[in-house]
Structure formats: structure tokens, C-alpha cells
């Protein structure tokens, strides 16, 4: 080790965090395990909670929108599970560095490890929630769509997008503590603006198409949801998501490079 830890630039920090992925993996797994340590069902409480929520929402909104259940329930199931991943990553991204303050002030560890830890924790939770999906398919005797494999590159793009968002939010929220509340607030609004509980085609004719096109979360949700429901995401969605990934990472790297050394002072 030739260069002093605190002097490293953003890229070195991120690469070291990836090289030492076992740290993020250990702590991320621990976060989930800790919550359910003495419970019999363990982390599958997540699955049960999400399952009940999806069932209830499906019944209520399916009837409200007069949608056929076998179409609406898989839609809301995948939508909620994907939204759960995105929203909890964004919210926990805000607190990822603040809540790691004790570690950051005592142990030399890449800063990005704390972001990876939060990301990994939410991937684990996502996998638990995803268990509901095959059950919903089974309930309506729908075969697994052949397009489902497309969800894998979709997931990768979504995760890489979430990673830069979490890094940016982690840094910004460590400095400006009010930001966490603001982000939570905006996320709540975004949930209603993004077609998770309602289908895009139920938008009234006069509604502006920009509502969807300029909503980055719409594209992220679609990237994962559409293939799991038997469709193929449009090229626009792919382009949008990948452009966001590239520009987002450029911005995140610039920000991280600039403020990396200050983070310890803000905690």
C-alpha cells in the first residue's frame, strides 16, 4: 500500500470496495439476519408481508379498475416487488453513510463498501420477495414467459443505476441531514406518479405522455417488470436507462472524488 488511504480517489475507493466485496457481503447479510434472528420464519416474514400486501392491493385496485385478476395481480406483484427494491435502496442510500459513522470514524475501509452493503442487503430482501412471483403465476396457471430471461440484464442495469444514486445520496445526506426527509417525501409522490398500482394504459387520453417518458423510475421499473410479464421493454426505455447509468456514474464519480475526504468530517 503506497498511497495513504484518505488520499485515494473515487475510483480507487470503489475498486477496492469491489475487491473486498466480502466485507459488504458479510455486513449486508448480517443486517438481514439480525432483524429476523429469533423468529421462526426468519427473513421469509418479508415474503409473507409483501405477499399479503400484494394480495390486498390486487383485490382492491383490480376491482376498482375493473381489470381481470389474472392480468392485474401479476402486474401489481412484480411492480410492487421491483418498486420495493428501488425505493428501499434510494431511502437506505440516504442513510448508508450516516448509519456507518461509527465504522467510518474507526476503521479504514473503502467508503463505497457501506453503499455496497446497503445495496446487497436490499438485493437479499428483493430475492425473498421475488418468491411470490412464481406463486402468483401458479395461481392463475400462467406459464413462465419466455421473455423472463431479459429481466436479468434489466436487473443489472437497475442495480448499477441504484448504486450511483445511493452513492450520491449517501454523500449529500451526510452533509445535509434534511435531505433524507426530502427524498422520502419525493419518493412517496413518485410512487403514485409511477405506474406501479395503475397500468400505463389506464392513463386518460388527454394525459401527457411525458408523465411516463420523463420519469426515470418508470423506465427502471419497466426494465424489470415488462419481461417478467411476457413483454419486451421498448428501445426507448433501454436507451433512457443506460444513458442515465452512464451520466449518473460520471456525476457520482465527480462528486465522490471531490468530497470523499470530507465525509469523515461530516459524520
Amino acid at each position: 500500500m503506497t498511497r495513504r488511504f484518505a488520499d485515494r480517489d473515487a475510483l480507487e475507493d470503489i475498486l477496492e470496495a469491489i475487491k473486498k466485496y466480502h466485507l459488504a457481503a458479510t455486513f449486508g447479510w448480517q443486517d438481514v439476519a439480525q432483524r429476523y434472528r429469533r423468529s421462526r420464519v426468519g427473513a421469509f416474514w418479508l415474503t409473507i408481508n409483501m405477499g399479503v400486501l400484494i394480495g390486498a392491493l390486487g383485490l382492491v385496485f383490480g376491482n376498482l379498475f375493473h381489470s381481470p385478476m389474472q392480468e392485474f395481480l401479476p402486474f401489481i406483484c412484480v411492480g410492487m416487488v421491483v418498486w420495493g427494491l428501488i425505493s428501499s435502496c434510494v431511502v437506505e442510500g440516504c442513510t448508508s453513510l450516516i448509519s456507518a459513522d461509527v465504522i467510518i470514524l474507526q476503521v479504514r475501509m473503502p467508503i463505497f463498501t457501506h453503499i455496497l452493503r446497503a445495496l446487497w442487503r436490499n438485493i437479499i430482501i428483493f430475492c425473498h420477495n421475488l418468491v411470490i412471483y412464481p406463486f402468483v403465476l401458479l395461481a392463475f396457471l400462467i406459464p413462465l414467459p419466455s421473455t423472463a430471461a431479459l429481466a436479468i440484464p434489466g436487473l443489472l442495469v437497475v442495480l448499477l443505476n441504484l448504486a450511483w444514486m445511493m452513492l450520491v445520496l449517501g454523500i449529500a445526506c451526510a452533509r445535509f441531514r434534511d435531505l433524507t426527509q426530502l427524498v422520502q417525501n419525493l419518493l412517496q409522490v413518485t410512487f403514485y406518479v409511477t405506474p406501479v398500482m395503475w397500468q400505463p394504459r389506464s392513463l386518460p387520453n388527454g394525459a401527457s405522455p411525458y408523465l411516463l417518458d420523463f420519469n426515470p423510475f418508470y423506465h427502471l421499473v419497466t426494465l424489470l417488470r415488462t419481461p417478467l410479464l411476457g413483454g419486451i421493454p421498448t428501445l426507448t426505455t433501454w436507451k433512457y436507462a443506460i444513458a442515465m447509468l452512464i451520466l449518473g456514474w460520471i456525476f457520482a464519480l465527480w462528486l465522490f472524488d471531490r468530497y470523499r475526504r470530507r465525509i469523515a468530517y461530516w459524520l
Partner: protein
Amino acid sequence: MSHIHLRDVAVEFPIYNAASRSIKNRVLNVATGGAIQRRFDGHVVVKGLDNINLDLEDGDRVGLIGHNGSGKTTLLRVLSGIYAPTHGVADIQGDSVSLINIGLGIDPEATGRENIRLRAAMMGMAPHELHARFDEIAEFSGLGDFLEMPFRTYSSGMQLRLAFATSTSIRPAILIMDEWLSTGDEDFKERANKRLHDVVTSTDILVLASHSKELLLQNCNRIVWLEHGKIRMDGSASAVAAQYFGN
């Protein structure tokens, strides 16, 4: 091989939530702690360290003394690469490990075995390193079958053994300590002290902050005396200790 060079190092903490107007626009010299000043841009700034020049080389066993708030912890954090100085240059070569809070990372609900893994990860140990050392750690802790039990069921002496055994299983190039680790019950104390001495002697550079004259004279060949964030005296252990502790 290892070295730490600090050149004109200063550390200033921005305080964003201090009610700025309550602090008068002048430098206050507080009895303990660094200077509180208000910068031109309106932020309140606490100067934790000022004008520190320090060269630590292989073989240095450095004691750090000073009253509460003199900047010891801040300097330890600069030396371990956690705080990047706000002014000046810190050049640190060598992997450093701090044995400040040896309980960091421990989950009371997890078993002893899992906690060794967690604690080792917190020390930055790679899985293969832990694998090689696991049996030795388990044996040194003397916990036997209790390793399969949740950590919270341990007596405080047992909890300390586990944290101590894991934390002292690595041999860093630079070792940072805040006081000697207390090591619980009598029969364990002797073995623990011997082990800690092994760690301390195998490291290239030791930095030990302490209030104990005896401890410092035993382990250090050099003492740095901090006062109000500045170096008041830096010299051989006996000379500085004599000045600081009086006669």
C-alpha cells in the same frame, strides 16, 4: 518499510449545527479543546489540530499524552488515515489497524463463531486469512462449546475474550491504540497481556495514547505531548514523561 510523515498538518471540524450567532465572531480560547473560530463564510470551525509536524519511522513506539480534548483522538484518526488533514500533508505508508473499540461489529444475537467472522471482517481480514486463523482464535478465546451459543449469553469476561482474541489475531504494520486493552479475569489476563505484547512488538510502528505513565514508559521509546491541538513536546519517553507527569 512503514513510515508516517506529517507536514504542517491541521484539522478543522466544520460545525454545521452550532447556532452561529451565539458564538462571537472572534477566536475563543477554551480551557480544554482546540480553538473555536468563525470563518469568513459564516461556518463555525473547531480547530482540532494545528501545525503538526511528525515523523514516525520503523521501530518507533510512540506514546501520545495530553489532557482531554488536546487532540489525541483526532491525531490517532489522522495517523490511521481516517481524517484527511484540512491543511498540510500526511504521508502514510503501511497498513494500519486501530485497536480502539474491539467490540465494533459484534452482534449480541449471533453465535460466538459468527461473531469471530463479523469482528474479523471489521478488522479488514480477508476470508482466507480468517480461515487460516480461525482455530487459533477459537482456541485462544478458550470458549470451547460456547462458540455455538449466542454472544449475549456470555458473561462480560467471556465477551471480552472473544473480542480480544479476534482483534489481536492480526499483525498490522502500524498499530494504533487508545489505552492498553483491559483484559478481564486473572487467569486470562496474563495470556492476554503476553499476546498483546506480541502484537505490539511485531508491528513496525506503534502509536499508543494513554494517561498511564507506567504503561507509556513500559511500551514506548518516544512520547508526543499534545496541548490545544499542538505538539507541546516531542522526545524520548523518559524526558517527556518527566515533564508531563511532574516528578
